[in-house]
């Protein structure tokens, strides 16, 4: 594993109105790493994830993806906001998987996966279709290519969503509680796809409540609470031998 930082966060703050959700997040995600974010709801982990691809604007601090500032350009000591088109350009390299899947309901599974490569990367339809079929095969849904999202189970929808994100050949994948909206028996299929992706060397940041997945697949783990990082380290160490009282009480409830 290389030691390049894919994501670097320095004192990131984020407020919604008067509510401060992130109160100074410092962390580093290395290239090729599976980085798990755990914590109670409202701890700011999803918000932090959304800051990484600039779906949310940060209020203070610095956030870097692959060495470049997120959402801004620095010239001298001045920061310039990026234009929408420049933000869009950077988002191409960051795949995101949502808790509620957010598949496009008016497109089939195949069309969902083809949409961005054709529209954004200007790939030919034939080329995009071939790649989309390969990706659907990879997530085990080759036979569902022609189905609309409403005809798929939650687990199948989420796997299509993963294929859709992968179609842009991202260098970083963000997972926002990808299994939280699924029936328990469907969680395994999605986790298998994610495990397979981790083995292929993809850099992944995963907000999750699946402690088993974090322990087996994760390279690093951060426990967040109240908008700050409480504890971080190797998942095995943090999960089996938590140092902070807050971590201990959280884990005793979820494990």
């Amino acid at each position, binding site marked *: 594993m290389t030691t390049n930082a894919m994501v670097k966060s320095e004192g990131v703050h984020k407020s919604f109105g008067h509510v401060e959700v992130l109160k100074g997040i410092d962390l580093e995600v290395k290239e090729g790493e599976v980085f798990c974010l755990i914590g109670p709801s409202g701890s700011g982990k999803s918000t932090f994830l959304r800051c990484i691809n600039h779906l949310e604007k940060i209020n203070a601090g610095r956030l870097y993806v692959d060495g470049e500032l997120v959402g801004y350009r620095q010239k001298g000591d001045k920061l310039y906001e990026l234009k929408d088109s420049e933000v869009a350009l950077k988002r191409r390299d960051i795949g995101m998987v949502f808790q509620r899947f957010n*598949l496009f309901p*008016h497109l089939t599974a195949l069309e969902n996966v083809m*949409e*961005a490569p054709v529209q*954004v990367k200007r790939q030919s339809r034939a080329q995009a279709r071939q790649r989309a079929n390969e990706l659907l095969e990879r997530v085990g849904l080759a036979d569902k290519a022609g189905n609309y999202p409403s005809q798929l189970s939650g687990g199948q929808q989420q796997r299509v969503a993963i294929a859709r*994100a992968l179609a842009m050949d991202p260098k970083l994948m963000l997972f926002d509680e990808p299994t939280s909206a699924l029936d328990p028996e469907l969680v395994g299929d999605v986790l298998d796809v994610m495990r397979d992706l981790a083995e292929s060397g993809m850099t992944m940041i995963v907000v999750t409540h699946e402690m088993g997945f974090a322990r087996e697949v994760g390279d690093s783990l951060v426990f967040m609470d109240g908008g700050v990082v409480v504890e971080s380290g190797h998942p095995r160490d943090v999960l089996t031998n938590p140092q902070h009282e807050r971590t201990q009480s959280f884990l005793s409830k979820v494990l």
Partner: protein
Amino acid sequence: MSVDIDKADGPADVPPPKAGPEAIKAIPVRHYGRYVAAVVAIGVLAAIVYAFAQGKINWGAIPEYFFDDRILKGVGQTLLLTVISMVIGVAGGILLAVMRLSRNPVTSSIAWFYIWFFRGTPVLVQLFVWFNLGLVFEYINLGPIYKDYWSSFMTPFLTALLGLGLNEAAYMAEICRAGLLSVDEGQTEASHALGMSHAKTLRRIVIPQAMRVIVPPTGNEVINMLKTTSLVSAVQFYELFRYAQDIGQNSGAPVEMYFLAAAWYLVMTSILSVGQYYLERYYARGSSRSLPPTPFQKIKANLLSLGRPKGAA
């Protein structure tokens, strides 16, 4: 439990297999109100029909002129005006809705002002204003492309189109805005996360989904527009109503021609209603697991079930 296996050839005296508790045979509630309502309705209808039959109306004139060349031409003009006005209305409506939802305060204010003005004044008044705008602009001058007197530029047809189309755009804008707002925010986020621009997200992701909400009220608007076109007879444009009026005055059967026009409007709106049904079905795809049957399929199914004998009796 003993069951006769040899059911197919079983003789008639074999007792039927026991199937749980006995089916309920109760006397249904009598709905006397329905009979009363039906009798009253038929009575009222008969009275109306009788009154009209007694009136001094020359019913024979209606079939005589129903397919008159002028009437058919009028129907064509009415349809043409409806279609083009609606195209202007829908295109303008989408544009205005996008402008109103835009983060740019200038464009959203312009859209707000437009909608405020065009919804706030009667369409008939707007038609007259367009028609008489020559008082304000004597010439229309598009530099080297086109230059003419306003009065000869603003033909009745153009007046009708602008008057109806621009007014419709204000109404369509509100319908489209409701449609755009109905699409889940997660769709926009997912699209942005894939690196799609605002414009692409709108065109490829949001608008196609908004259509499901936009289409049904738009169907109503088309039907409304078809009827509203009769107003443009006031600015000298010849369409169905105007032709019917003309024929009525020349042939001495004015009221009959109004009935004729009403019948034609009914025919056209009925056809549009059918079209709207199929359009709604088209935009519902992907949102439900299976589409509801078309009326034709329903009729077919009903006929099949009618043909099947209900009991052995």
